[in-house]
């Protein structure tokens, strides 16, 4: 007898939640780091070594890469436990996270159409997470 559905779902869901947050965090950090490094490189002259040093010593870039490594590990973990057709739509909740973070932390203007999209994604993710997380084979230990 496989583990009860609630436990199996929990084991599949937390890697997806981490995936969504670390994916969004990684994108934001990489974008910020690239902007900082590019700006500093241009101000400091065009010597290749100087430019390279700015990229290699940028903390945001390294944190961004680290976040994306965590993202990738969680992705693999999620796929080892749940259906592909469960993980992919569920991880679209990253659009919701990115929109809310941009709105709350960066004061971005969010259009009505975009809010509608966020609501529709929430409804879709909710429906998908009502279905059984893993529908293939027996659960292997």
């Amino acid at each position, binding site marked *: 007898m496989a583990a009860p559905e609630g436990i199996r779902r929990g084991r599949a869901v937390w890697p997806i939640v981490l995936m969504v947050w670390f994916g969004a965090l990684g994108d934001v950090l990489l974008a910020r780091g690239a902007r900082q490094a590019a700006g500093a490189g241009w101000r400091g002259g065009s010597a290749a070594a100087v430019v390279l040093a700015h990229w290699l010593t940028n903390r945001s870039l390294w944190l961004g890469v680290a976040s994306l490594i965590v993202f990738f590990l969680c992705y*693999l*973990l999620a796929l*080892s436990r749940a259906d592909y*057709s469960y993980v992919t739509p569920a991880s679209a909740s990253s*659009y919701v996270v990115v929109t809310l973070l941009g709105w709350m932390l960066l004061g971005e203007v969010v259009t009505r159409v975009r809010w509608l999209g966020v609501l529709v994604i929430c409804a879709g993710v909710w429906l998908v997470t009502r279905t059984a997380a893993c529908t*293939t084979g027996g659960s292997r230990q």
Partner: protein
Amino acid sequence: MTVLLLAVVIIGGTAGEVAVTRAMKAIGDVGRLSPRSLLTMLGRAFRVGWMWLGLGLLAAAFFSLLALLSRENVTFVVPVTALSYVVGAVMARWFLGERVDPMRWLGVLLVMLGVVLVWMG
């Protein structure tokens, strides 16, 4: 050319993810989580052929997306790539034997619609 690139991004990219899924299903759940078991998971995953096929397809999809973005508008490209959600559900049924019931189908369609709206807004 645009259609070809879109096909590689949508179908190739989804096929790549499906191949990665196949690799992860082949090695199964790692059980108790620890840095060691995660490393074991990675070590096993990269010894499965499906993983390399998947990563190759994902790389092809990524470079096609870059090529596409240099030719077409982002506001056209990204909403169209939301079709991947539907293609993914179909491929998951065909190649992975997953059960996509009506509720999951409806959810997938809503997610696709929502992503299109987010990018249009």
